[in-house]
């Protein structure tokens, strides 16, 4: 069975993410919001989770639809991450408990899929970062930007703003090389890249299909024809 090596391939998006985190670090003590957005499949969540894993004191929360009706559920989840036990059962005390813990230790807080939540949440987050100077990094898809721009007070506090760009042709070549020791010709790279529409998941899927094609035909160098078949197989699911 075709398999890719489990490598985390760095590209311009991951480097820009590191720069964003460095920028927030330089602004430490000022209180700031970071914004990371882009279409699905460009690696926002995995890049964030990797950074979080390498900085385990940071906090990662994925917004849940059930929080939508009340900020209390969000504050309780944040309390749990801040090891406030038991978490207060009312909004005001829960908010103040989070503020006190973050003043004590202003660790970065990531909130993924933030667009699921209503605009009221942005005000709560703005208050948290203002009062504690802890950086809050909001991660979401493209609709997050107008969502935040509608709230001028939040937008003006957005210190770092990063858009995850589509995966480039060089990233496809690097990924094939690092994950499968495959050196692809420019033509094959362009076929895989063109079919992926900037989505890393599709690059991965088509690369796996390409390796299947190579295994089936017993060849060790991928041809353009194989790449086309691999892409077609991805589209039809066969």
């Amino acid at each position, binding site marked *: 069975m075709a398999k890719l090596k489990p490598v985390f391939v760095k590209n311009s998006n991951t480097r820009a993410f590191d720069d964003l985190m460095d920028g927030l670090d330089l602004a430490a003590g000022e209180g700031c919001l970071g914004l990371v957005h882009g279409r699905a499949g460009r690696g926002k969540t995995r890049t964030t*989770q990797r950074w979080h*894993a390498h900085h385990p004191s940071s906090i990662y929360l*994925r917004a849940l639809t059930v929080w939508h009706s009340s900020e209390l559920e969000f504050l309780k989840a944040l309390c749990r991450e801040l090891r406030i036990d038991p978490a207060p059962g009312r909004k005001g005390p829960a908010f103040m408990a989070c503020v006190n813990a973050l003043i004590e230790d202003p660790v970065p807080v990531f909130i993924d899929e933030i667009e699921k939540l209503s605009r009221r949440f942005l005000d709560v987050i703005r208050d948290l970062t203002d009062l504690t100077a802890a950086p809050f990094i909001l991660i979401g898809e493209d609709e997050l930007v107008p969502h935040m721009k509608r709230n001028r007070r939040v937008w003006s506090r957005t210190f770092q703003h990063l858009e995850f760009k589509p995966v480039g042709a060089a990233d496809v070549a690097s990924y094939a090389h690092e994950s499968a020791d495959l050196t692809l010709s420019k033509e094959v790279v362009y076929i895989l890249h063109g079919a992926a529409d900037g989505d890393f998941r599709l690059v991965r899927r088509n690369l796996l299909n390409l390796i299947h094609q190579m295994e089936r035909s017993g060849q060790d160098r991928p041809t353009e024809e194989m790449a086309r078949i691999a892409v077609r197989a991805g589209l039809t699911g066969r």
Partner: protein
Amino acid sequence: MADLRGPQKTSFAGQVRKALQRIGMDYREISAAELAHELDMIADKEKQRLYNTMRDFIKRGEVTRPRDGVYVYKGQAAPANGNGRDRMWAVVRARRQVTVEDLQQLAGVGAEYAKEFMRLLVRNGAARRIDRTGQATVYRLTTDSVDIPAAAAEANAAKLRNIRAQKKDEALAALTAAEVSVKMARRALEELGT
């Protein structure tokens, strides 16, 4: 063009790195000739030194070579923070559902270490193993605990201590065997000499 004879003492690797940072931003592909030109290198002997340095960079993951004679600068790897166990726990909690490959990619640990960690979480009731035909096994977190379950943490530490002790014993045994071989060889040589 880069001046390599400035008053500041910079290692050769440092000079190559600076050149890569200048011309290889945003993961642009750089040809070997372009890099040699940036470093003002003409003679083949000089270039050989450059190729050796690039080989070291590739081994360290700082540079990749998608094709012969073409490089992509990836930047220096940041030192890993936290221990492997903490990094894995952060990934498991963030994703709630992980594969061993996820842990390898995101926490930067080896497959065996990741499998062992997940086995311990399963044994301690903190995760459930879900086998899928033809696909990687998935582990689902079943606890809301912020900290690594104590039993898993202790058992994991004990396991790692055992692995280290076992490796140390193996290394010592290999060393003793080598010493014995050297002694025997020396004795044989002495006998030949007399």
